[in-house]
């Protein structure tokens, strides 16, 4: 191969290299997401064989000497058998994390692939071409029993893989079915492309222009399968971005390499290209590792929260039974103590929820489930919780909601409930005497929830930082404990759902009014 090979852009070569780089990045990113998964490992094996097969397919048509071409063809058919075998293995285990390959796989299929492919490498099976005319022409070996064997084995593995996938579509449900369907779609596209460009056009129309692009035709099955594996592994935007960015850099440096005009430029650009691949893969790997660490942190938080919530639920349940007099009359001082247990339980669950939410926001994992619901009903529920609390403190808690109207909004009900609970809880805490009024109104196409209190009020200089993390207004004076995250989360939750939250106060000791506003829906 002389240097003039690089004088112009060889589009078929670019196509093959794009496919190779793309397959390599996808295979490694899938593996990094789930290193112990049998599907990921089989996918990596299939990807490696695909890369070798694609390269061999390209070079098959570049040899001018019949002896070299014969050797290349032997190697290509050898790879074709392993390619079909790798496809079958992937189809067999897909999309399971763990699946034992049966004994017949190890003792029958693997030796069959090994012996039939090895036989193809030696001259015993076929010695010459039936039609070697010129380079860039279709070449095929003389018809012999060895070739029939190779064709039979390759086709059997391929058809068996398709049957396994097809049967799995019927056996699976939900996400798993979606995964199998995706892989099946990718395989169908690949089969269609190979059939059209590698069989119908060359054999039927003597058009061999697209044959060297074989590696590109394998791309659909690789991309669809990688995406299907990702569905289980929760594909994140950052990971896609890192993968695409790496792919883009590799392609740019590859084009630079191909356009090299001198040997010095070529050597330099080869180094740049290789460095881009190595650094790019490292970038993708690091992104996944950070993502994995974040997920582990999040899982740990969720688990700890669940484990702490259960004994608190039990504690509150028994306290409620005693408070309700279900186990006999309870004296007033005991009732007060039970109320304190209830409030302490509420505080712990609120703290837990707030730290969990803050962690989710920081990790970009906060999700919302919007539904259409009547805010007035949610407020009824919340006030039922706080009524006793307010009475115990000696302040009033009243509701001002018109019964003739439904106050429908579209938002995450649980999150909005947290927001309203937080505001009412704050109002009660910061109101030493007087009361809190919660009202809901419909105005100009919006639903406005107003929580007004006669409490300590808010000074202007505090107002601007009230919705920031760890901000508390005049805490020392009213002896309040809390995470300092409540209003910060209330603002995040409300604004993330296209709502608004704000506070008004005429100053110290003049009370405050919190407003939450959402578009009204019919």
């Amino acid at each position, binding site marked *: 191969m002389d240097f003039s090979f690089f004088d112009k852009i060889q589009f078929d070569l670019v196509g093959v290299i794009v496919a190779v780089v793309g397959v390599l990045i996808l295979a490694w990113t899938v593996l990094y997401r789930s290193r112990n998964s049998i599907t990921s490992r089989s996918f990596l094996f299939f990807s490696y064989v695909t890369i070798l097969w694609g390269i061999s397919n390209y070079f098959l048509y570049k040899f001018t000497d019949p002896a070299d071409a014969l050797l290349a063809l032997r190697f290509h058919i050898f790879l074709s058998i392993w390619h079909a075998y790798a496809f079958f293995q992937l189809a067999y285990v897909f999309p399971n994390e763990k699946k034992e390959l049966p004994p017949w796989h190890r003792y029958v299929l693997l030796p069959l692939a090994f012996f039939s492919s090895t036989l193809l490498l030696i001259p015993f099976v076929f010695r010459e071409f039936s039609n070697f005319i010129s380079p860039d022409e279709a070449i095929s070996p003389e018809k012999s029993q060895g070739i029939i064997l190779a064709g039979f084995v390759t086709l059997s593995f391929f058809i068996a893989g398709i049957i396994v996938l097809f049967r799995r579509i019927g056996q699976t449900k*939900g996400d798993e079915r979606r995964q199998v369907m995706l892989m099946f779609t990718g395989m169908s596209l690949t089969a269609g492309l190979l059939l059209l460009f590698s069989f119908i056009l060359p054999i039927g129309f003597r058009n061999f222009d697209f044959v060297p692009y074989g590696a590109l035709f394998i791309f659909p099955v690789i991309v669809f399968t990688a995406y299907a594996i990702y569905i289980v592994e929760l594909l994140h935007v950052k990971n896609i971005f890192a993968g695409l960015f790496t792919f883009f850099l590799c392609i740019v440096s590859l084009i630079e390499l191909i356009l090299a005009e001198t040997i010095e430029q070529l050597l330099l650009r080869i180094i740049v290209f290789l460095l881009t691949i190595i650094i790019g893969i490292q970038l993708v790997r690091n992104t996944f590792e950070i993502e994995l660490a974040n997920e582990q942190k999040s899982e740990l938080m*969720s688990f700890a*929260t*669940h484990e702490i*919530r*259960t004994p*608190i*639920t*039990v504690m*509150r*349940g*028994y*306290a*409620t*039974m005693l408070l*309700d007099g*279900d186990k006999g009359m309870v004296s007033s001082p005991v009732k007060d103590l039970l109320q304190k247990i209830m409030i302490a339980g509420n505080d712990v*669950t609120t703290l837990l*929820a707030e730290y*969990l939410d803050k962690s989710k926001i920081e990790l970009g994992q906060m*999700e*919302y*489930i919007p539904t259409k619901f009547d805010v007035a*009903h949610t407020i009824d*529920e919340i006030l*039922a*919780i706080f009524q006793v609390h307010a009475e115990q403190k000696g302040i009033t808690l009243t509701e001002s909601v018109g019964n003739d109207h439904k106050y429908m909004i579209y938002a995450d009900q*649980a999150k909005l409930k947290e927001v309203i609970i937080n505001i009412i809880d704050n109002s009660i805490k910061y109101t030493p005497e007087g009361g809190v009024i919660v009202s809901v109104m419909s105005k100009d196409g919006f639903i406005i929830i107003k929580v007004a209190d006669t409490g300590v009020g808010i000074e202007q200089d505090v107002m601007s930082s009230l919705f920031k993390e760890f901000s508390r207004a005049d805490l020392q004076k009213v002896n309040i404990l809390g995470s300092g995250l409540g209003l910060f989360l209330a603002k995040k939750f409300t604004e993330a759902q296209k709502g608004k939250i704000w506070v008004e106060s005429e100053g110290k000791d003049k009370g405050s009014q919190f407003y939450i506003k959402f578009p009204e829906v019919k």
Partner: protein
Amino acid sequence: MSDSKKKIMIIEDNKDLQEIYKHSFEKYGYEAIVEGNGLEGIDAIVKNLPDIVLLDLMMPGMDGFGFLKKVKDIGGLSIPVIVCSNISDVDTINRALRDGAEDVILKVDYSGKQLVDKVNFIVDEYNRKKGVQLSSI
């Protein structure tokens, strides 16, 4: 209007919560059946045909998701299943709703009458959607 008590099946592995929930629902007019995991729940749902199921998610043996799947496989059971768990992540909630739960409530948020009221509200909504005549207990 029906005079018979509404039947709720509580599927919960925590013994204390079994006691608390049974007590609360019976106090407010329900007949409560308690089962310790999804598998026991499946046997009992066919036998008892409750009006409502209150289902925990994390349980030994068959968990809440296993129960939901089995109920779906059996088919023909028009019984609202309310998931009552202390897991609050969106994926779990979405999965439970997707698998057939009527609603998902956070255990720690409700106790005593609040829990019964919440369940009544969800069941009333379910019946309203199904076009069934409401009947108080």
